[in-house]
């Protein structure tokens, strides 16, 4: 019994590198088979457009876009070497995801046994949410990578107590802050854990933390000053509605089951009372919450709570993708929870979760109804085949012009509603219903047909569509993906 108990993990430890390699191959296959082939999305088009400029301009554009520049600069250099093809740009994000897989395992090994670590890594690899952003031309996979590195060094500070851990923590804190503003939330979680569990740290840790944060402030201040110098942001980002608790639970659901249709998502989140049963089952003798688990709980919950509170009190910033860096912590908590169950029940629960997540990953990847899919490529292909030089294409919201521009090579004029001069300094013009007739007249003048491509509803999409429906004859309608519809209106009857 004892021999078996010790042999089993040793075998697993030896096999672990091969299992991790296998998981990396699996994620690569998933990426190539499904995610790399998708149409360019709005945010990706924006990244490609921003990084097509020189470094100075990139800093300006990113600063105005309420982001930090590390990812864009890396992508810029990447494109210099590999070109600006969508798939190649996506490979950069995937590269960081791939690096995160062994890192996830290493962090797991630092905190838990080999079984829990492998299970958590497997969750990470088949995570529908993670796979989505691992293949998107945005900074999110880099953010996860940076946070995992930072967490690895932070945990090392109180477990290994080495100087190297402090150096690593400092470097990743600085790089992380230049990856995403929300990175500070993980530092906040680190600090919170430190004050909650000071006894785990060496006595002189507090001055060291202050030192790191002082250095961070010094090195990040130039960027803050630069953003302030640029003035108000370009308002090029979608406006967000204040979140409700529904958004919070949707975020947790997305972290586990990815982006599903409203119906499926409703089913998944409505099952929440079962989480109480899962918690009940974890009530086991001497199953104390280990400091590592407390840390992951804090790293998962605190950023979500702070982002939610800021969204209510200051301005809406709560978006599941901004909080993607809390996903690994959530997986560690889930893996720990299931690991507390009796052996047979743990096996069943782990298998059920893996199967469920793999299933939802499959649905997310292949279903056309996946709500985050933005099929601009197909919409633009259709336009290219059907528009005439006398037609005009109008996209709304204005910022959705980026992915359209990326694909569009047709003969008709391309414009936005509200009308926006992309090269002019300043934010995207706001929508005013009173200005709609005038703007539509300007757009329609001299054209035969108007193709209206509506996506990313900013609160006025229905007004725009109704205006066209009541003033012009609609001759064509097609929905290319959830929230992306194309309408054709006849402007003139004299030709």
């Amino acid at each position, binding site marked *: 019994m004892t021999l078996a108990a010790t042999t089993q993990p040793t075998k697993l430890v030896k096999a672990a590198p091969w299992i991790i390699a296998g998981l990396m191959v699996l994620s690569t296959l998933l990426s190539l088979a499904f995610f790399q082939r998708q149409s360019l999305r709005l945010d990706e088009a924006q990244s490609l457009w921003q990084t097509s400029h020189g470094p100075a301009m990139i800093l300006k554009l990113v600063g105005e876009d309420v982001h930090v520049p590390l990812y864009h600069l890396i992508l810029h250099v990447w494109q210099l070497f590999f070109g600006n093809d969508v798939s190649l740009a996506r490979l950069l994000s995937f590269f960081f995801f791939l690096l995160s897989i062994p890192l996830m395992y290493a962090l797991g090994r630092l905190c838990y046994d080999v079984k829990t670590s492998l299970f958590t890594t497997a969750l990470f690899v088949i995570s529908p949410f993670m796979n989505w952003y691992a293949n998107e031309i945005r900074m999110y996979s880099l953010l996860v990578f940076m946070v995992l590195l930072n967490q690895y060094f932070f945990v090392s500070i109180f477990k290994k107590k080495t100087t190297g851990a402090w150096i690593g923590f400092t470097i990743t804190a600085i790089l992380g802050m230049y990856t995403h503003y929300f990175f500070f939330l993980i530092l906040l979680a680190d600090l919170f854990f430190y004050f909650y569990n000071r006894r785990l740290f060496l006595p002189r840790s507090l001055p060291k933390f202050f030192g790191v944060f002082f250095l961070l402030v010094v090195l990040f201040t130039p960027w803050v000053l630069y953003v302030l110098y640029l003035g108000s942001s370009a308002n090029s980002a979608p406006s967000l509605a204040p979140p409700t*608790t529904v958004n919070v639970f949707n975020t947790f659901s997305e972290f586990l089951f990815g982006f599903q249709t409203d119906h499926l998502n409703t089913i998944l989140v409505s099952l*929440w009372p079962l989480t109480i049963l899962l918690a009940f089952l974890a*009530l086991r003798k001497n199953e*104390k919450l280990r400091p590592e688990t407390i840390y992951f709980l804090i790293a998962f919950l605190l950023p979500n709570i702070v982002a939610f509170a800021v969204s209510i009190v200051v301005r809406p910033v709560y978006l599941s993708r901004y909080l993607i860096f809390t996903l690994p912590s959530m997986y560690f908590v889930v893996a720990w929870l299931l690991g507390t169950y009796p052996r047979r029940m743990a096996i069943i629960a782990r298998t059920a979760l893996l199967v469920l997540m793999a299933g939802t990953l499959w649905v997310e990847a292949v279903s056309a109804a996946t709500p985050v899919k933005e099929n601009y490529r197909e919409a633009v292909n259709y336009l290219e085949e059907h528009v005439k030089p006398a037609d005009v294409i109008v996209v709304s919201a204005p910022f959705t012009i980026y992915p359209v521009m990326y694909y569009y090579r047709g003969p008709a004029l391309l414009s936005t509603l509200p009308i926006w001069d992309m090269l002019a300094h300043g934010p995207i013009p706001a929508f005013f219903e009173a200005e709609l007739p005038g703007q539509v007249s300007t757009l329609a003048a001299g054209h035969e047909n108007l193709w209206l491509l509506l996506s990313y509803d900013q609160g006025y999409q229905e007004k725009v569509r109704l205006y066209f429906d009541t003033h012009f004859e609609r001759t064509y309608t097609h929905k290319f993906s959830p929230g992306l519809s194309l309408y054709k209106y006849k402007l003139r009857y004299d030709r």
Partner: protein
Amino acid sequence: MTENTPKEKTQRSEFMRAQVPRSMMVFTILLTLLYFYLIAFTFAAGNMTLFTLLIIGEIFHVFQVIMFVSTIWRMDYEAPQDKLHFEPVDIFITVVSEPMDIIEKTVRAAKAIEYPSVTVHILNDGFVAKKENWQEVEVLAKRLGVNCITRRTPGGAKAGNINHALRVTKAPLVVVFDADHVPHPDFLKKTVPYFVDERMGFVQVPQYYKNYQLNYVTQSAWEQQQLFFGPICRGKNRLNSVTMCGTNMVIRRTALEEVGGMSETSIAEDFLTGLYMHSRKWKSVYVPEILAEGLAPEDFLSYYKQQFRWARGSLDVIFPRNLLLLKGLTWNQRLQYFVSISFYLSGSIVLMNALIPIVFFFTGLVPIVTSTMILASIFLPYILLTLYMLQKSSNFSFTFRALAFSMGQFHIHILALWSAMTRQKVKFSVTPKRAQTGNFLKLAIPHIAYVIVALVGMSYSYHTGGLTASFIANSAWALLNVGVFLPVIYAASPQLMRNKQLSVPKLVPEEVSVSTKDI
């Protein structure tokens, strides 16, 4: 059973070593109150009857959480004691028809107690209980060199047995052990010093089950006990509200005589006697240390009977006359006794909550109209933090099994409540010290029925209303209840006793009786 090593002894007392940060307790209360406020005052009521029942249930839960926190607010209270204090002691070992080997072990251990002046008496009730082996007890007493007091006049069950012995003994302190509770040699050294306080009425020590690892029932029973004998009793200690548990206790004779001896009017004679002593301003102390080792009920029938007896006995305190209003009790004591009793009222609440999804399946009625996510956002933090506090207060000894057994005995509570309210006569019976065999699934019929009705209800609701968010959420609630009731069904199922080594041999199969008359 092998002797325990010092490490094992320390480990098994761990549940009495915990402290809960006060910030956590305050936060738990705030979350609980917030949850209640939102549920009661901000959500739109659905069906008014269901809403009212839900609110009654929530008021009960809020009361339980607040009282639990107030009880465990300080668990490290230590009453004054004098290690050199000494008074002669009579040890009473109450016996009815227990196996001789069990009695012998207890008597030998009692004789081995290290104390200058102690007389061991076996209180033999076998004769009045018409047990065949009553004479064997006298033989055993003679062989072991202890006094045997065999009662010839029946009445009062265990309490009557003790009261009879009180009349023929005279030491100022009396110790009571059930026949299966084997004391440690230092039992008196650790308990008598508290009697330096002249108003000290009784000292209670935990009722530890040495056979707890035997099977599912013993494990569950012990894990349930740990919450009580850990944080709850330690907290009651501070409030001079210790519950008298009927065994492993030292009582001052004058205090006991002042309240007319052990109460013979209830099947929970200990609980009531403690209450009377408190009302006469006698003090009580709880010693959080395992100083005696007993046996847990080894089968579900025995467990059922034991729980019913405790429930009915406790409820006798408030039905038909509310003894909590007795003069002399402090408000803290009244509250503490009431909160102990209120555990046995929780069965109705458990059943009520469990029926809410069932009602939805068949009628579509709901108690509140709100987004299931909003409910989740206020309910989950409240329930998870409360669970964590329970875990922490018991030093992570509280388990799912204990929770399931506590919630799953709702039918026992309801039955006990009914019998208390209707004043049904219930005969006292000792918890069997041998495992009973047989099929006890009869005792889990309410749980099995719930599972069946829930599944039928889900199917009906799905066919009539489709896969709506309300259907999913209510199904999840029903499955949660099913998950909690399954351990009870499992414990009652016949396979439990297979391949298990029992601490004492099984009894021959007998007919399972669920009548309240002889519990």
